C-alpha cells in the first residue's frame, strides 16, 4: 500500500520536473511573453476608446465594420441555430426546475406518473440546462467570438450545423431515457452511455472548426479568450468520454470518477466558456483593454492547475482516502489565486467605467455575471473547508452555491453575449429594448430571492442535522419557508427566460428592417 502511494508521489515529482523543464523551454522561446498591447487584439484599428453596444445604437449610427461584417456573416447560421437550441433547452429546463422546486413543498402534486417524480424531474432540469442551454449557447458564443479574435472567418461553418442537429437529438433521447427511468445513475452522468456516444460525436463537429479557424488566424497572438475556449474544447471531450466509459469502476472508485468529472464540467468546461466570454465582451463593449494582460496568464494557468483537482471536496467525510480529500481541499483554497487574477482584470475595468453599465444592458449582464463568478468561487473555496463543509454538505446550501456558479455567473454572461451578438449577426435590432431591461430585473431579483432562500435555509438545515438533540424531522421543517421562497424566485427567473425566448424568436423572424450598417454595405453593389 505504502509502495503504491510512494510510487504515486514519485510520479507527481517527475511530472513537476517535466513541467518545470517545459516552462523553462517556453520562456526561452518567448512562448510566454505577453504584453499589454496584446490586449488590444479584440479591437480593429481605431475602434478602441469608444463604447460598442449594438443594442444601444440608433438608426443613424454607422457603427459597423466591413471586416467583421464578413466574419459575422460566415458564422451566422451555426451561431443562431445553436443559440436558438440553447434557449429552447433553457425554457424547457427552467420549467422542469420549477416543477422540481414546487414538488419539495407540494409533495403530492403530480405524483401519478413515474416520469414526473421528483428524482426524474430534477435530473431532467440539470441535464437540460447544463448540456442544453449552457453548453450549446456557450459553444455558439465561442463559434462567434473565436473568428473575431483571430480576425478571420470561421472555417468549415457547416460542420457545427451537423453538430447542433446531432447534439439536440442525442440530448432529447437522453431526456426521454431519464424520464423513463433509464439512467446511468450518477449525478451529472445520468444520460445513458449509449446516448452519450451521440453527444461525443456531435462535439467533434464543434471542436474541429474552431481549431482549424485558430490555426488559420490572421493575428499572431491568441487573445486570452482563445486560451480558455481552446483549452475548454480540449478538456471537455476528454473528460466526457473517459467518465462515460462503462463497466470500468464500481463502488467508491466510481464515486471519485463521478466527482472528478462533475466538478471538472464546471471548472474545465463551463468556467472557461464563461470567463473567456467575459474576457471578450467586457473590454469590447467598454472600448478599453483589460486591466493587466499579463495577470490573465496567471489566472488561466492557475485555473487549469488548481481547478482540475478540486472534485473530491464533494466527498469530504466520506469513504474515500483522507489524502485525496485533503488534496482537493488544498486545491480548492488555491483557487483564490486564479480567481483573484481574473477579478482584478475584469472588475477593475468595470469599476473604472461604471457609466457604461447605464448605457449597455449586455454589459450589465456580463459584468454582473463576472462579479458573481468571483463570489461563487470564493464561496466554493470556503465551502470546501472541513468545518464549513460539515454544516453545508448534504443541504440545500450546496444547491444555492451551484446556481450561483451555473446561473449567476455563466447564465448571466451568456445572456449578455446573446444580446450583443444577435444584432451583429443578423444585422437587425432587438425589437423591444424594454424587454431586455425587464428580463434583466426579473432574473436578477428572482435569483437574489432564490439564492438567499437556499443559503439561509441550507445553513439552518445543516445546523439542525448536526444537533443530535433535534430529531431529523426538524431539519425538514426548518427549510419549508425557504423552499417556498425558492419557488417564488425560480418563477421570476423562469418568467424572465420566457420573455427572453419570445424576444429572441421575434428578433430573428422579424421582417428585415436592416441594420444601418447593412445598407452602407449594399450601396456599392447597387451603384455598380
Amino acid at each position, binding site marked *: 500500500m505504502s509502495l503504491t502511494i510512494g510510487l504515486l508521489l514519485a510520479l507527481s515529482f517527475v511530472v513537476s520536473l517535466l513541467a518545470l523543464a517545459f516552462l523553462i523551454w517556453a520562456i526561452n522561446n518567448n*512562448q510566454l511573453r505577453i504584453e499589454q498591447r496584446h490586449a488590444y487584439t479584440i479591437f480593429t484599428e481605431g475602434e478602441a476608446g469608444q463604447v460598442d453596444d449594438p443594442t444601444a445604437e440608433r438608426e443613424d449610427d454607422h457603427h459597423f465594420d466591413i471586416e467583421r461584417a464578413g466574419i459575422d456573416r460566415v458564422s451566422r447560421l451555426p451561431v443562431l441555430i445553436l443559440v436558438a437550441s440553447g434557449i429552447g433547452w433553457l425554457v424547457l429546463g427552467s420549467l422542469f426546475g420549477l416543477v422540481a422546486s414546487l414538488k419539495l413543498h407540494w409533495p403530492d402534486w403530480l405524483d401519478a406518473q413515474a416520469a414526473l417524480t421528483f428524482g426524474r424531474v430534477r435530473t431532467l432540469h440539470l441535464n437540460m440546462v447544463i448540456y442544453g442551454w449552457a453548453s450549446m449557447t456557450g459553444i455558439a458564443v465561442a463559434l462567434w467570438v473565436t473568428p473575431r479574435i483571430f480576425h478571420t472567418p470561421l472555417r468549415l461553418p457547416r460542420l457545427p450545423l451537423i453538430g447542433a442537429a446531432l447534439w439536440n437529438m442525442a440530448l432529447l433521447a437522453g431526456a426521454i431515457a431519464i424520464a423513463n427511468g433509464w439512467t446511468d445513475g450518477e449525478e451529472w452522468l445520468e444520460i445513458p452511455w449509449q446516448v452519450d456516444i451521440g453527444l461525443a460525436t456531435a462535439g467533434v463537429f464543434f471542436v474541429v472548426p474552431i481549431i482549424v479557424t485558430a490555426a488559420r488566424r490572421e493575428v499572431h497572438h491568441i487573445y486570452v479568450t482563445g486560451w480558455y475556449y481552446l483549452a475548454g474544447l480540449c478538456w471537455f471531450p476528454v473528460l466526457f468520454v473517459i467518465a462515460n466509459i462503462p463497466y470500468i469502476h464500481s*463502488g467508491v472508485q466510481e464515486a471519485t470518477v463521478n466527482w472528478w468529472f462533475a466538478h471538472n464540467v464546471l471548472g474545465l468546461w463551463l468556467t472557461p466558456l464563461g470567463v473567456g466570454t467575459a474576457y471578450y465582451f467586457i473590454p469590447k463593449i467598454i472600448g478599453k483593454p483589460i486591466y493587466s494582460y499579463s495577470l490573465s496568464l496567471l489566472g488561466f494557468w492557475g485555473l487549469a492547475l488548481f481547478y482540475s483537482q478540486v472534485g473530491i471536496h464533494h466527498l469530504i467525510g466520506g469513504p474515500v482516502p483522507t489524502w485525496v480529500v485533503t488534496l482537493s481541499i488544498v486545491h480548492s483554497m488555491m483557487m483564490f489565486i486564479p480567481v483573484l487574477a481574473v477579478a482584478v482584470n475584469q472588475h477593475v475595468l468595470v469599476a473604472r467605467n461604471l457609466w457604461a453599465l447605464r448605457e449597455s444592458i449586455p454589459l450589465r449582464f456580463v459584468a454582473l455575471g463576472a462579479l458573481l463568478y468571483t463570489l461563487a468561487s470564493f464561496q466554493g473555496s470556503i465551502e470546501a473547508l472541513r468545518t464549513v463543509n460539515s454544516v453545508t454538505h448534504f443541504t440545500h446550501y450546496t444547491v444555492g452555491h451551484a446556481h450561483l456558479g451555473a446561473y449567476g455567473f455563466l447564465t448571466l454572461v451568456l445572456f449578455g453575449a446573446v444580446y450583443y451578438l444577435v444584432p451583429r449577426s443578423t444585422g437587425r435590432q432587438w425589437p423591444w429594448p424594454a424587454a431586455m431591461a425587464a428580463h434583466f430585473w426579473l432574473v436578477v431579483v428572482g435569483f437574489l430571492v432564490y439564492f438567499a432562500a437556499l443559503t439561509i435555509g441550507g445553513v439552518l438545515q445543516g445546523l439542525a442535522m448536526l444537533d443530535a438533540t433535534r430529531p431529523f424531522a426538524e431539519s425538514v421543517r426548518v427549510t419549508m419557508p425557504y423552499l417556498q421562497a425558492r419557488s417564488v424566485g425560480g418563477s421570476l427567473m423562469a418568467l424572465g427566460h420566457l420573455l427572453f425566448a419570445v424576444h429572441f424568436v421575434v428578433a430573428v423572424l422579424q421582417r428585415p428592417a436592416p441594420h444601418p450598417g447593412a445598407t452602407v454595405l449594399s450601396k456599392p453593389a447597387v451603384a455598380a
Partner: protein
Amino acid sequence: MNRILPLGVIALGILAFATLMLVIGPAIQIKSMAPTPGLANYSAQELRGREQYVAQGCVYCHSQQPRSADQAPDAERGWGRAAVASDYVYDRPHQLGTMRTGPDLFNVGTRLPSRDWHLTHLYQPRAIFAWSIMPGYPYLFERKSRAGPGDVVVSLPAEHRPAEGVIVAKPAALDLVAYLQGLDHTNPAPARAVRDDGYSERGEPR
C-alpha cells in the same frame, strides 16, 4: 501564448495529472482492500430493487454514507457507523449521494426492518410522517377491488385508503423494499479500512 499545440498539450497534461491524482491513485488504494468482512452480495431481487432505487432517483434526496462520530451525530440518529470504501464493492452504479433532504439510508434495513412499514411509506409517506416532503410512489402500486392470492396489501390509515377496494404492491415496489430491507452495513469495519479520517484526532479509534 501564441501557439495552439503547446497550449493544448499542456492543458491535457494538466488534466492527465489531475486524473492520476483523483482517479487512478485512489483506485489503486481502494482496490487493494478486501470487501468488509460479512458484506454479502445483493440477491437477484435486491438487485432489481436497486435498479428501481436508481431509476426513481432516490439518490437526489438520500445519501448512503454515514459520517464519523467525530464529524456528525449520524450514528446517534441510527444511521450506522462511518462508512468505509470496502462497504461498496458490490455497488454499481454507486449511490453515495450528496443530499440529505431525507435521512441517510446506508443501514435503513436494520433501522426499519418491516416490509409493511416501507410499503405504506412508499405509497404515501404522509400516512406515517405528517412532516415528510418525500413524494409518494402510487405508480408502484395498484388498486384492486379485492386482493388476489399472493397479493401484498398495503395497510393504510383511513384518510389515505381508497374509497373502495385495496392497494396492492406491484413487483417493482416489493423489489425496492427488499433492497431497502437488505441495506445493512453494520458489520464492524477492519481497522485499516479506507475512509476520510480528516475529522478524527490523531490515533483515535474509529
